[in-house]
Structures are given as structure tokens and as C-alpha cells.
């Protein structure tokens, strides 16, 4: 069996993208504004990260209109859900290995995306 670090997915591993996929793993779909506010991001930062995830086939983006107002809905694809599950499993295994199988804390603090600038 390979070392957990070998199973980390560079596309999903970034903190903002992990956050996006985590929200979408709970909801069927979320709109752009919800994701931006929940993750504490700017429009540009969220757009860049969504583009990376869409190109990898991890999210599907649907643009709709509510009356005359445009709205962007994002949902995770099956591949995206699997990638998130594999990433979280690898992180847990990595942490278990480092900390002698100690369980990860159940709660965290702060906005996940606060420091999560998308790479160029």
C-alpha cells in the first residue's frame, strides 16, 4: 500500500477547493454567492478555484436566470465526491500515522478559505 502523501490529489488538496467540495458533498447544489460567503472568498478567487475544479471534472456549473437576475449554481460530480472522500481519507491516514492514530479534532475554527488564495 502506498504512503498517504502519494494519494493526495493536487487539484483537491488546496484548502479552498477542499472547502468547496465539502459544502457540495452535503448539499445537492449551492449558488456562487453562498459559496463565496460561506468560505470567506472574493468573487475572483472563488471563480478561479471553481474553474480548476470544473476543468478537472469535479464540479458542474449551471447558469440560470431568476427573472432577469443571473444565478450560478454549482454541484459536485460523482468524480468530485470520490476525490474529496479519497483526499479526506488520505489526510486522516496521514495524521494517524504522524500522531500515532490519534483521531482528528471534531471542530475547527475560522473560515477555511481565509488564507486560501488560488494558485495561478
Amino acid at each position, binding site marked *: 500500500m502506498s504512503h498517504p502523501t502519494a494519494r493526495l490529489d493536487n487539484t483537491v488538496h488546496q484548502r479552498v477547493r477542499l472547502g468547496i467540495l465539502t459544502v457540495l*458533498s*452535503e448539499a445537492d*447544489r449551492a449558488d456562487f454567492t453562498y459559496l463565496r460567503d460561506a468560505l470567506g472568498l472574493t468573487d475572483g478567487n472563488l471563480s478561479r478555484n471553481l474553474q480548476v475544479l470544473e476543468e478537472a471534472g469535479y464540479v458542474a456549473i449551471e447558469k440560470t436566470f431568476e427573472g432577469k437576475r443571473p444565478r450560478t449554481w454549482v454541484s459536485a460530480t460523482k468524480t468530485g465526491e470520490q476525490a474529496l472522500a479519497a483526499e479526506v481519507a488520505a*489526510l486522516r491516514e*496521514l495524521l494517524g500515522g504522524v500522531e500515532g492514530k490519534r483521531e482528528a479534532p471534531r471542530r475547527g*475554527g475560522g473560515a*477555511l478559505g481565509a488564507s486560501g488564495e488560488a494558485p495561478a
Partner: protein
Amino acid sequence: MYATETAQTLGELEWLRLQTRRRLEGLSFPLVLFGGISLVAAALSAALGEDAQGFFWALAGPAGGVAVSLHYRRRELDLGLSRAAWPYICTAVALMVACFVLGFLEQPWSVGPWLAVAAGYLVFGALERSAAAIVMSVTLAALAVAVGVLEITPVAVILNAVYGVAFIATGVGVRARRHEP
């Protein structure tokens, strides 16, 4: 990645997951609505006899279902977050059909519609991952079985009243929990 950073990331993901789940919680509205309808049905049964509540539910049940679906739709647009609707719609339709069919049964099986309601809300509770709704459903099912087995009457007055109070209490509790920090 350092262990502390990994632990922090996993903790933040879990926090985000719980926040999203809490925001998605929408069961309080149908619980309070159908709790109120149940109490009206109990009053009707006490005043006009048990048959009256059957006619009342035939009208109030589907009307309540439409109100709930409109509520979920409005909430989805306001919040910008949604769950798939089809499991809820299938459960609601199955629940209404089961109540209609089981409504023709006689004692001790006259509690059949209430067992169907408890089973329906058990599914809704599982869909929303609401422990409170699951516990409420199992408790109400046990109470309905006890009423049927012990042949306690009048069934419709007792069970509509008990279900009404339990639904409203659980709905209010779930809503209060949603607004916890």
C-alpha cells in the same frame, strides 16, 4: 504538510460540513405546520367524531404538502443551497397513499395511518440527518402501537393530539438548534 496543519484542515472541513448541514435543515416548518394540522384534527375528532378527521386530512394533508414544497423552494432560492427534492416528494406521496389505504382498517389496526406517518418522518429525519426527528418518529410509532394493542380509545383524538404536540415541540427544538452559533 505538518500534522497540526492537517488536523486543523480536517477540523475546519468537519466544521464546514456541520454548518452546511445545519443551514440546510428545513424540517422545522413541516413539523410545526403538520403539528398544527394534527391538533385541529384532534379537536375535530373530539367535537364531530372520528370520521370527521378523515375528511379533514384528505383536504389538509395535500394542502400542507403543497405549502411545504413551496416553502422548500422559496428557502432554496433565498439561501442559495439545496438538496435533491425527489426523495422528499417520493416519501410524501408514499406517506399520503399509505395513510389513505390504512385509514380503512378497524381496531386494533386503526392506528395504521399514524404508523405510516411515523415511518414517513423517520425517512424525512434520515434524509435531513436529524436525530431529533428520528427519535420523535420511533417514539411516536411505539406510542401508536401501544394505543392499538391496548385498544385505547378514542384513537383519532389521542393520536392526533399526541402527534400534534410532539411535532410542534420537535419542530421548535430543531429550529432553535439551527440558530445556535
